[in-house]
């Protein structure tokens, strides 16, 4: 892990929704060009933590955050920093596939337009992003079809294409396979592993096998706290905490 410097990190983060203390003194680091899995029982704050990194909580008025989030040593919540720039550098694939109610083509084109990418380059970028996300062969003849007509797995790959088209530095994925069949899941896992050479990836998953198959590093959370973090192999085979051991061996959660 020494040859993978930290790309993204959080330091002593606390988050409240109203009076509810959801993240408690959380500190995590994500190494560059590695896949880090976030695991933990439902409701422990994985999505909440993930959403801090692209400032999605800015939209909910009752969320209060303290602590520090660093991307390449730059504080993501600094006053001078633009939210839209943060979100472009830190892309997100959501728990449920959420293509826009527009055509397949327009789903990717939208982000390009928003980010002022010249018209002449867009066609190529869109094609490339669809290829990178292994969905090109399935949709190349019907790019004008409504994206909502695609299957769940295709929709999720389209959402990944939408994210990679913008060449972010980090991709956050919130249970990208939770609604998919085993075959689509394997396709997406393959895709994620291929993406890691260009991106830093954080993935939330409930699937222990998935974490072990694809993640270099794993972080186990429980009730809003980080219990244990380390190399995936070590964490699963020799957990240091009893709680981690119980969880990864399927004894609770």
């Amino acid at each position, binding site marked *: 892990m020494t040859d993978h410097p930290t790309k993204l990190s959080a330091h002593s983060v606390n988050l409240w929704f109203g009076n509810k203390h959801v993240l408690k003194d959380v500190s995590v680091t994500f190494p560059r060009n590695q896949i880090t899995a976030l695991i933990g029982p439902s409701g422990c704050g994985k999505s909440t933590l993930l959403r801090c990194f*692209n400032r*999605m909580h800015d*939209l909910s*008025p009752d969320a209060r955050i303290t602590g520090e989030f660093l991307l390449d040593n730059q504080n993501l919540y600094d006053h001078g920093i633009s*939210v*839209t*720039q943060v*979100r*472009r550098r830190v*892309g*997100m694939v*959501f728990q*449920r596939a*959420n*293509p*826009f*109610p*527009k*055509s397949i083509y327009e789903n990717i084109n*939208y*982000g390009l337009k*928003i*980010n002022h990418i010249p018209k002449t380059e867009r066609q190529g970028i869109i094609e490339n992003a669809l290829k990178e996300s292994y969905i090109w062969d399935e949709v190349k003849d019907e790019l004008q079809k*409504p994206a*909502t*007509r695609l299957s769940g797995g295709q929709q999720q790959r389209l*959402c990944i294409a*939408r*994210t990679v088209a*913008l060449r972010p530095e980090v991709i956050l994925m919130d249970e990208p396979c939770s609604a998919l069949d085993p075959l689509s899941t394997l396709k997406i896992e393959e895709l994620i592993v291929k993406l890691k050479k260009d991106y830093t990836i954080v993935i939330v998953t409930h699937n222990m096998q998935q974490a072990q198959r694809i993640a270099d590093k794993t972080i186990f959370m429980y009730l809003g706290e980080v219990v244990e973090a380390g190399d995936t192999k070590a964490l699963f085979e020799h957990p240091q905490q009893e709680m981690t051991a119980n969880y990864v061996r399927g004894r609770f959660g």
Partner: protein
Amino acid sequence: MQLPVRENIDKTVRLLVRSTGFLAIAILGGILFMLLWNTMAFFLQIKPLDFITGTQWNPSGDPALYGILPLLVSTSLVTLGAMVIAIPLGIGTAAFLSEYAGSKLKGILKPAIEMLAAVPSVAIGFLGIVLLGPGIAGLTGQSNGLNALNGAVLLAIMALPTIVTVAEDALHGIPDSYKEASYGVGANRWQTLIRVTIPAAAPGILAAVMLGVGRAIGETMTVLMATGNASAFPKGFFHSVRTITATIAIEMGEVPYQTTHYYSLFAIATVLFLFTLIVNMLGEYFVNKYRKYHSA
């Protein structure tokens, strides 16, 4: 023992519901029949071409003139004017309520706007005579402000609650996941609103607009009070106009039964009916067109 009783109640209720349903259809059919029957009687006496192309409506003149054009232009002027004001204002207000206003402000504003719908049209017409009329007169230097613009503004006010409420519901119903997807690729609030939320809510917004237009075309009392009802051919927004609805309301009371004049009022009512029918069908068409992107 219990079963037959329950079945009997069930049967009675079913009969009741079915007969009220049939009653509604029968009433609708009756109205349509009466409209068309009397319209036919009118066209037996007046040539359709004269009716459609005539530029004067003067049933009590000599000769009596039954040109619908001035009425049609009046109705169009007032309706279009109302829509030009109410559509952007209504959608803007709806967007503000659903996307920008905090929950407290929305909790006050939305009921207030909905309450506007409960103001009787006579009261709004009154407002047009005592407030808006003199205002317009003062601005334009005319003797009174009873004209198409006055009517359009009042109708806009009346259509606004419908448009705002229905459009706000449509915008509010757009799943957060669409908006998050938009923010996720670096869009700001405005871009998200204009390019994602409003297009996604388009069917509902169109329905809102159509309901608003329907209300404006069919409204009688307000335009009767506010537009001056001059029978001369309408020359523009700053001139008095006489809409189809106002004409029917004014003349129906004094016209002798089963005369040409009497039939003519049914003929213009039929035209009004066609108008609203077309508006509704257009609305339906657009709603379906947009829906294709939503079916999962």
